């Protein structure tokens, strides 16, 4: 008999009633219902079912589930807290520029480089700011290649070792590297070389300083570059030396320049900057007096200057016969007066890699007392360039003769950047075995038998000695995404040693460097200190024993009369108009060509992006009928044939007649899509024989330039360089400023009136407990663009590519406005960094219909991205035009891949490149407005830290990315409401402070300081 069932509700009752019927839908499917629930489940059945399901689940769990992306720490590393950044001190050297850095890492991933707060050489150029991108670049090699085929590291190392072992006894081995400033690496290299019977190490510098090094060798017996202390100089003359734009070390030179150019009421003196040049360089655009040279006049100019100074100083040194034009005579007279007005504090920097000129420049510096005063510090020289063009020339010769058995090329790319790349490529074929060690399979790598992926500096342990007595240990900040090995580790493997370079370095340090510390502490703790701090100032020198400051050993010096005679006997390079002048642009010389940030950073003087071009002066353009955008064919007869490229013309003010200025570093053929923009200009360099040696000269005559009749789309971010008489940029001269500190800024002299006007408003006055303010000193901004790249990096600013920039869609939060004034043939330039002014009465705020942009309690104009609907009214109404709109999906933040407009090889291009993105800053999606946030993430971080520590935020504790990156220190940031801060005091009391478009009553938080040129009144 069936059991009687009671039901609790009607539904349940129905359910029970209908259990067998047609409309019955069992909850778990009929089969389950019938087998499990309907039956009286016995204990044995229960166990059976349990066993079955457990087994099934276990089996299913054995399946390999694809793991994607983020993996949480299994064991959390002690020092790494998710969401908290860790900073590591390290150092970076790319063969040209050295910088001591602090690398910000998040969850083990470096995301930003900043200058080291304490160490020397803590200045960053645009290149260094962008260098972290190269670490992640997905074009990097991830496997050794043998004749283009991927092979394993084991095989690669074994096979290459076999090759090397086969030539140990009888065979020529040559290693080409960029300048090596690592003492440990040098030691290792010499060990490696000594294991062969005939091996040689050749240092190859893309931007060569051979002539300068040789000139100093002749004068002082030391083949070094004196450390040019322009920070201590009173007068500096640059002769075709773009020392702020890449000559020697852009960032560090700019830092020193800034230190010498900073004018305050306490120290009202500033460096006098003279520049004599034919090309209008970034450095020339910052000069107080610019002397425009005609093509090739730098050599007569420097000789004439030498004569004049030799005469005026009664040095007794011989004068040298040279014919000078009227202009040059005037220049020489004027410049020599200015240089001699500051004996011991005047310095001449001669740019071209021309031995004759360099020797005279050395003689001038000697006469000016620069070596004696340590202004050109030959005692503690720079080591950042050691290469010899002649050695490399000889190597190519040897290779051509088929004498080289094994050629090891580390981190050099002569098939792209040598003056005769095709000659080098030809010679390479005659080398039995070529082993290239590089981060990418570049032009040279593609011609090599073996390509071994080598690490970039951020992945390597290394020590550096960029300058005598200044020792750095660079620790790796990343284990590396790519299957690369450090150069030194490969050397160790070839030597058959079983240690890695870290051990080698530490041993080397203990034995060779630690004794130079002159410290009593135990090595281990000093090692820890050095690694932690990143640097150590050595008390002793390896070469000279105990360091003695400021003393000059005259015995070492040459007989100067004889030196001058030797210099005058050296042949001059043949230079006639027209000539190609090569220069290094923001993207550097090839290493950073695939760096989309740098490619999109505007050229300082033309604001052109994504291309190199032939820059010509306005008068020369008129004469020849050139217009910006005209495509011309530039050709040069070279030894083996003619090198021809087609490049667009850009008319740039200030360039002398007959000068075709072309930037190198473009037109890579064996790198990413980004790097392929533009044309390679390296082959326009020439090899010049002087004093029996060859030098690579970046000025070459004999070029033929003809119009093709076609035009080319050249894209720039600024189209109008005329201020139209508007008081947006204010400037004065040092003399006038000393007389009247309000000069140039007379509009604000009536402080009471200004105060009253600033308070005149319909609306209630806002009170701020904290108010973030920025002060930008226009005297210090040199227009280098480091801030732009730093901002791109810090704030995940999209790179949009040439096509989008041509549609005026660029996204830079920070831009540097450039205005020219005066004679277009030799104009004055002024740079004005322009960013969101964070107005207290912001015109953008009241027009936004959805209140997506508003003012914070601490005076920041903020954007709520996810509230923004993108009417762009705010951008229209911004008088400073600093708001940027995401016209397309530039970042891949939207869900449809089809509508992405991402630059190939850019920072958003793929998962590997995207690792560079700052996790503290949201990636903006299509259709929203964005702009400078005053690095609000940094402010917030500092606020939280201060709060946790129960204190106020210290003045200077928060540095915006642009401020930190600025090598000259033009940008200051702080709490303007706290009257004790530097920024508040400047705003309160400095007469040079002004606001752009103050008359609109926007009450900006960014104040500018009147630019001071070190000129006398009549020259203003």
């Amino acid at each position, binding site marked *: 008999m069936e059991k009687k069932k009671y039901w609790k509700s009607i539904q349940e009752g129905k359910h029970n009633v209908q259990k067998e019927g047609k409309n019955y839908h069992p909850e778990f499917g009929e089969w389950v219902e019938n087998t499990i629930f309907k039956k009286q489940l016995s204990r044995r059945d229960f166990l059976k079912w349990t066993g079955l399901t457990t087994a099934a689940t276990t089996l299913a769990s054995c399946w390999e589930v694809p793991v994607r992306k983020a993996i949480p720490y299994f064991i959390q590393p002690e020092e790494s807290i998710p969401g908290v950044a860790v900073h590591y001190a390290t150092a970076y050297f790319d063969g040209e520029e050295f910088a001591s850095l602090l690398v910000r890492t998040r969850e083990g991933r470096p995301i930003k480089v900043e200058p080291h707060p304490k160490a020397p050489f803590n200045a960053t150029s645009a290149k260094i700011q962008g260098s972290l991108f190269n670490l992640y670049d997905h074009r990097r090699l991830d496997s050794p290649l043998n004749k283009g085929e991927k092979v394993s590291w084991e095989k690669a190392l074994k096979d290459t070792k076999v090759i090397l072992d086969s030539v140990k006894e009888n065979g020529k081995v040559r290693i080409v590297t960029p300048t090596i400033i690592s003492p440990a690496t040098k030691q290792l290299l010499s060990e490696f070389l000594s294991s062969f019977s005939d091996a040689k190490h050749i240092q190859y510098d893309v931007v060569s300083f051979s002539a300068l090094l040789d000139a100093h060798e002749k004068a002082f017996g030391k083949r070094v570059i004196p450390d040019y202390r322009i920070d201590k100089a009173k007068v500096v003359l640059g002769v075709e030396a773009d020392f702020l734009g890449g000559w020697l070390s852009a960032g560090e030179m700019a830092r020193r320049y800034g230190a010498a150019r900073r004018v305050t009421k306490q120290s009202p003196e500033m460096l006098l900057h003279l520049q004599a040049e034919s090309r209008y360089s970034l450095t020339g655009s910052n000069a107080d007096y610019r002397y425009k040279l005609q093509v090739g006049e730098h050599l007569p100019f420097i000789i004439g200057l030498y004569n004049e100074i030799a005469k005026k100083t009664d040095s007794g040194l011989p004068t040298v016969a040279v014919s000078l034009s009227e202009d040059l005579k005037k220049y020489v007279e004027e410049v020599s007066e200015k240089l001699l007005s500051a004996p011991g504090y005047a310095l001449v920097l001669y740019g071209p890699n021309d031995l004759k000129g360099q020797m005279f420049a050395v003689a001038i510096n000697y006469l000016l007392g620069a070596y004696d005063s340590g202004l050109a510090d030959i005692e503690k020289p720079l080591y950042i360039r050691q290469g010899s063009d002649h050695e490399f020339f000889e190597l190519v010769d040897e290779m051509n003769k088929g004498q080289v058995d094994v050629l090891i090329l580390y981190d050099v790319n002569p098939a792209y950047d040598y003056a005769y790349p095709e000659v080098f490529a030809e010679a390479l074929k005659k080398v039995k075995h070529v082993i290239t060690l590089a981060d990418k399979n570049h032009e040279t790598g593609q011609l090599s038998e073996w390509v071994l992926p080598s690490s970039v500096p951020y992945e390597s342990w290394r020590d550096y000695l960029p300058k005598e007595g200044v020792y750095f240990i660079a620790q790796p900040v990343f284990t590396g995404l790519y299957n690369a090995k450090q150069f030194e580790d490969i050397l160790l493997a070839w030597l058959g040693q079983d240690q890695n370079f870290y051990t080698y370095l530490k041993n080397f340090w203990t034995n060779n460097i630690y004794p130079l510390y002159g410290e009593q502490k135990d090595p281990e703790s000093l090692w820890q200190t050095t690694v932690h701090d990143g640097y150590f100032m050595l008390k002793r020198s390896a070469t000279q024993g105990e360091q003695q400051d400021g003393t000059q050993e005259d015995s070492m010096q040459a007989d100067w009369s004889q030196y001058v005679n030797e210099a005058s006997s050296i042949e001059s390079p043949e230079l006639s108009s027209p000539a190609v002048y090569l220069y290094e642009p923001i993207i550097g010389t090839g290493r950073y060509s695939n760096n989309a940030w740098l490619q999109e950073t505007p050229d300082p003087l033309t604001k052109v992006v994504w291309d190199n071009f032939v820059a010509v002066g306005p008068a020369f353009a008129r004469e020849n009928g050139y217009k910006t955008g005209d495509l011309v064919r530039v050709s040069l007869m070279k030894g083996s044939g003619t090198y021809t490229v087609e490049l667009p013309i850009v008319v740039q003010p200030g360039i002398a007649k007959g000068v075709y200025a072309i930037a190198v570093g473009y037109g890579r053929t064996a790198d990413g899509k980004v790097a392929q923009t533009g044309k390679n200009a390296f082959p326009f360099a020439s090899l010049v024989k002087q004093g029996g040696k060859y030098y690579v000269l970046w000025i070459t005559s004999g070029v033929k330039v003809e119009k093709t009749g076609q035009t080319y789309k050249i894209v720039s971010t600024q189209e109008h360089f005329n201020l*139209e008489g508007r008081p947006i940029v204010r400037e004065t001269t040092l003399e006038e400023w000393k007389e009247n500190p309000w000069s140039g800024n007379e509009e604000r002299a009536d402080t009471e009136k200004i105060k009253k006007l600033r308070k005149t408003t319909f609306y209630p006055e806002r009170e701020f407990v904290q108010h973030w303010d920025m002060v930008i000193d226009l005297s210090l901004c040199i227009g280098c663009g480091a801030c732009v790249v730093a901002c791109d990096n810090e704030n995940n600013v999209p790179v949009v590519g040439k096509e989008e920039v041509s549609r*005026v869609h660029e996204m830079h939060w920070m831009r540097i406005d450039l205005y020219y004034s005066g004679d277009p043939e030799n104009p004055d330039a002024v740079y004005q960094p322009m960013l969101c002014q964070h107005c207290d009465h912001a015109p953008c705020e009241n*027009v936004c219909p959805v209140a997506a942009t508003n003012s914070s309690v601490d005076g920041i104009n903020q954007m709520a991205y996810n509230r923004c609907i993108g009417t762009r009214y705010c951008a229209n109404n911004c008088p400073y035009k600093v708001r940027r709109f995401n*016209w397309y999906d530039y970042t891949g933040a939207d869900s449809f891949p089809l*509508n992405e407009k991402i630059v190939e090889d850019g920072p958003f291009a793929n998962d590997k490149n995207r690792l560079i993105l700052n996790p503290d800053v949201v990636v903006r999606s*299509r*259709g929203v407005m964005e702009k400078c946030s005053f690095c609000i993430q940094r402010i917030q971080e500092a606020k939280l830290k201060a709060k946790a520590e129960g204190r106020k935020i210290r003045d200077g504790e928060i540095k915006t990315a642009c401020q930190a990156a600025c090598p000259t220190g033009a940008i200051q940031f702080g709490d303007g409401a706290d009257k004790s801060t530097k920024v508040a005091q400047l705003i309160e009391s400095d007469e040079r402070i002004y606001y752009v478009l103050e008359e609109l009553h926007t009450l900006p938080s960014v104040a500018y300081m009147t630019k001071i040129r070190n000129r006398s009144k009549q020259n203003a």
Partner: protein
Amino acid sequence: MHGYESPLRPVLVKGEKTYKDVTRDILRPILGKPSWLWYLGLAVSSLALLWGLYAIGRTIFFGVGEWNINRTIGWGWAIINFVWWIGIGHAGTLISAILLLFRQKWRTAVNRSAEAMTIFAVMCAGLFPALHVGRHLVVFFIFPYPNSRGPLWVNFNSPLFWDVTAISTYFLVSLLFWYIGLIPDLAIIRDYTKSAIKRKIYGILSFGWLGSLKQWQRWETISLHLAGLATPLVLSVHSIVSFDFATSVIPGWHTTIFPPYFVAGAVFSGFGMVLTLLLIARKAMNLEDYITVDHIEYMNKILLATGSIVGTAYLTELFIAWYSGNIYEQYAFWNRAFGPYWWSYWIMMACNVIFPQTFWIRKFRRNLWWTFIVSILVNIGMWFERFVIVVTSLHRDFLPSAWSMYFASWVEVSIYIGTLGLFFTLFFLFIRFFPVIAISEIKHILGSEMALLKRKKSSATVVESEN
């Protein structure tokens, strides 16, 4: 009711029409078969509409980057077209509301089509603000509705919000006004049509209108009320549209003259469009007896008046720019006339100020061809006025470093063509399915007309005839 008939006032409906004639004439296109011209017109305009829809689709899918607006010029053709269409949408309400209050009886012949035009123009205009935003899916943020985000309200200070409010109000009132006016006429169609389906549809649309005295009385009352409501709207809508510019800080936008100048310009362009359409419609639909040369002349007089106001405003702007001593303002106006966009300024000046001045002469006012040409020139001129305001003001504002140029992309042009397509598609459908002249209203004036005619006939005076 017997009123005083001015002997000087010319007759408004020609051809000695009886009430039946009126009904027959006006219903002819609705009851009969349309001509091939109608089909062609509809085909062309709906193709244009489809093309526009494609461009709109691209804009929504790929982003506003499909347009050539940029960093410096954040608004381009979209906002120009928006203001242009809103301006065109001004004549209808002005005719129906303000002229009703002013007892301008000639308006009855043109008010229906002018109102329809208003509604279609506002529909076209409304598209642009919705399309020009960056994030189309969240446009609704602009409406002040209670929400779970705080609640987070809109920014009541923003002229864009006022804009949304003003235009939606204007659209609603205009639509109501137009539809209520249509009800008695729809009932006539219902009664006349032989098709059962049409009868059903028009029956529903006419809300069961019987023409009882009570209904007529209520109908008159609501019409008057709506006229009263609509009158301030005519002035407010374009004033508020002008605030989009006037409340900003941009030289060339930041001017107090904008509200009256915009309203005058809107009426100007509205009448330009009414004239263009009616000159075609009266010919194509044989309505010469209803829309007479006198009507055209009246409207030309309005064109002359508003055109002169606009011209005065242009000159005032120039004077103020010079007189203000503000270098940015001075440059902005210099740049309008002699900068890279000089041509747009001079097209605007010629079309809006110079050509309409010919209407001081009666011969020109009554010349249909000349009127047609000028009416089109006026709309070209008014389009360029908005171009001058939006583009030339923005492209060179305060900082010369940010100066830039703007030329529309094909997508922007296509969307504009699409809205023209939308406008004409709707207009073609309107003339096919609705009476283009308010039958019941024109019958009102017919009574007095008939009396006048009779009187004139009896006194054997020659009726002034149409050429």
